[in-house]
């Protein structure tokens, strides 16, 4: 039972990332009817927002201290980040909290990027074939990731979580299992809660605001909403920006779990597409549910017991499920009728 719980928890945080990316993909697809292969790149760009903030905060002033010597007898270099110079202990706290703080800069950056992307490129592809949409966003994904590679290098850049959340929580003890049976890193709990909050707020935004109502109406029948004199294109642009923000936030918060590198976007994108397909194209709830479901199944498949039974299952389980779902229920688990039936 405790092992079971542990695997569920392990799957949830990855599932959270899948769900967030898949949510954005579905949102863009549902509103604009565009298949965005560059969505994974947005996830990656979000995580590099965190990297950028971290490196900005830790810009250092180097002073040679003649009093203290290194092992080689040269004066020791004393490195102090400027921000500590300016703010003292508060500066240290800022550096420590750089990942959560990056959310603040990621939101405007990703929103801007999303809007630019939609207005500058995607807009011209509404009327083109799906194949063309796939190809152009695929090209964009390559361009974005190569730019990041040239700026940040090819190696993963570790991002520490705030010291407060560095350790692990003994969840098993809280739930009445034996000590150390279910140990789970704090940051992953935070990530799980964070993704829950983001998903809930996206749904609330669509469900309870006038803006969201118009967007939902536009998803159902774009033309009629346009005929009613509503500038639906502008709203959809903002929705694209919103999807970019969601992907970016997922990336920012994921950095302490997986050190970001330039190709993480594509790795996650392929899986997120599978998630969308399993959940059902055009179904927001389906995307979220399938995201968590596949995350959990993947974590079960990577258990030693399962892996020794069917070698390699951890690598392919998600794809296998996608294949089975598409063959048995081509519309996906929660797919709406008539959405991308062909």
């Amino acid at each position, binding site marked *: 039972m405790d092992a079971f719980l542990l695997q569920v928890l392990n799957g949830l945080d990855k599932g959270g990332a899948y769900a967030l990316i898949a949510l954005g993909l579905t949102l863009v697809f549902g509103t604009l009817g565009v*298949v965005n292969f560059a969505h994974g790149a947005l996830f990656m760009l979000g995580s590099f927002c965190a990297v950028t903030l971290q490196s900005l905060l830790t810009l250092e002033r180097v002073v040679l201290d003649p009093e203290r010597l290194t092992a080689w007898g040269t004066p020791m270099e004393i490195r102090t980040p400027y921000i500590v110079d300016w703010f003292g202990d508060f500066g240290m706290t800022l550096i420590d909290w750089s990942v959560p703080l990056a959310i603040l800069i990621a939101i405007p950056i990703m929103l801007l990027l999303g809007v630019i992307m939609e207005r500058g*490129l995607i807009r*011209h592809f509404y009327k*083109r074939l*799906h*194949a*063309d949409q*796939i*190809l*152009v966003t*695929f*090209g*964009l*994904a*390559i*361009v974005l990731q*190569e*730019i990041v590679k*040239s700026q940040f290098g090819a190696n993963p850049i570790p991002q520490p979580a705030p010291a407060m959340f560095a350790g692990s929580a003994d969840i098993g003890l809280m739930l009445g299992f034996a000590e150390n049976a279910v140990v789970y890193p704090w940051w992953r709990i935070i990530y799980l809660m964070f993704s829950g909050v983001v998903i809930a707020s996206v749904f609330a935004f669509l469900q309870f605001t006038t803006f969201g109502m118009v967007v939902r109406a536009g998803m159902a029948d774009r033309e009629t909403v346009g005929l009613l004199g509503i500038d639906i294109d502008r709203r959809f642009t903002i929705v694209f920006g919103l999807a970019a923000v969601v992907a970016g936030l997922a990336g920012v918060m994921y950095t302490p779990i997986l050190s970001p590198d330039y190709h993480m976007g*594509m790795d996650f994108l*392929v899986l997120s*597409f*599978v998630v969308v*397909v399993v959940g059902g*194209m055009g179904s927001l709830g389906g995307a979220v549910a399938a995201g968590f479901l596949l995350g959990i199944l993947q974590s079960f498949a990577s258990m030693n017991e399962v892996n020794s039974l069917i*070698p*390699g299952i951890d*690598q*392919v389980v998600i*794809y*296998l499920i*996608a*294949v089975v779902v*598409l*063959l048995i229920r*081509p519309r996906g688990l929660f797919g709406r009728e008539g959405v*991308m039936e*062909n």
Partner: protein
Amino acid sequence: MIKFNVKNKDHILLIGFIIVVALAPVIFAPIGAGYPDLLQKFAIFGIFAIGFNILFGLTGYLSFGHAAFLGVGSYTAVWTFKLLTMNVIPALILSTLFAGLFALVIGFIVLRRSGIYFSILTLAFAQMSYNLAYSVLTPITNGETGLQLALHDARVLDGVFGVTRGEGLPSTTLFGMAMSGWSGYYFCGVVLIIMFYISLRIFRSPFGMMLRAVKSNQNRMSYTGLNTRPYTLAAFVISGMYAGLAGGLMAITDPLAGAERMQWTASGEVVLMTILGGTGTLLGPVIGAGVIKYFENIFSSFNEGILMDAFSFLPEMLQHAVVSITGLFVGEGWHLTLGALFMVIVIFLPGGLMEGIARIGNVTRRWLKPKPVATTEADAAASE
């Protein structure tokens, strides 16, 4: 006088193609590509792209997983070298067959869906194969190191036919002729010509027409009571076999197979080659493959020093700025160029280079032969 109908046009095209392949060392020498290694790549990726075009160009099914078949072909070829013989013919046959079988299994599943579902499913399958090649299938694929020849390989058939074992690693042969340098290129060239001819025949056949009909309106085909899946599956398998053959040729020119050949970037590359040259055209994919491999070769070899020399005519400030910007696109940054090219082609020239050539041709023709002045609008419309 020769009648200029489709059939004769095809003959002229084929003869021209053969001449270009045969004289490639001379033709491509002025642009610095007249050496066997690069020409081999042109031919191999040309085959890969021709095969991809049979699927994407004719049926419109956009596969993002074709590199998996290339990888299967490569692995099969290297295993044939290890187990059977260093002769290239069995390797080619087996790699084509295995890739075809693999394509049959995968195509049977993924062709249940079309459009973006198909793209995503093929991508998923390719990623799955790539992941498996890296992890569980290591006994077959030798994981990250890649599958290589070894001194103590069995090579059963070579033993039977009394081929003497030399010192060191053997090289691939065609009945005793070593497949390296120019003979290697001409072997690939001959295969390319044959494959081009097959694709020409497919394009002109009723089967090809059927595939085109699938592309233009699959629903209507189904409504007329026709089951389109056997046709699309056949196209999928054929293009998979082309990819397997290309993979086999890769292993012949360099007997080493690695999983990175199956990665999604490799699948993306063949898509790019095809659309760059012109989707659904006969020559386009070969031209696209050549252009991409040529520029890859040139761009990757550039470095800061060469760029500095190239822009030395500029004032120093400007030189540094220009070099640092162009430096992004060359050497390691070749993929950036590739991605940017991808976007530019899709945005501005969806028909690829072939469409570009056709457009230029139209413009010049109109320019050379001024139209008679149209008297009425109806006349103008009639002369269009």
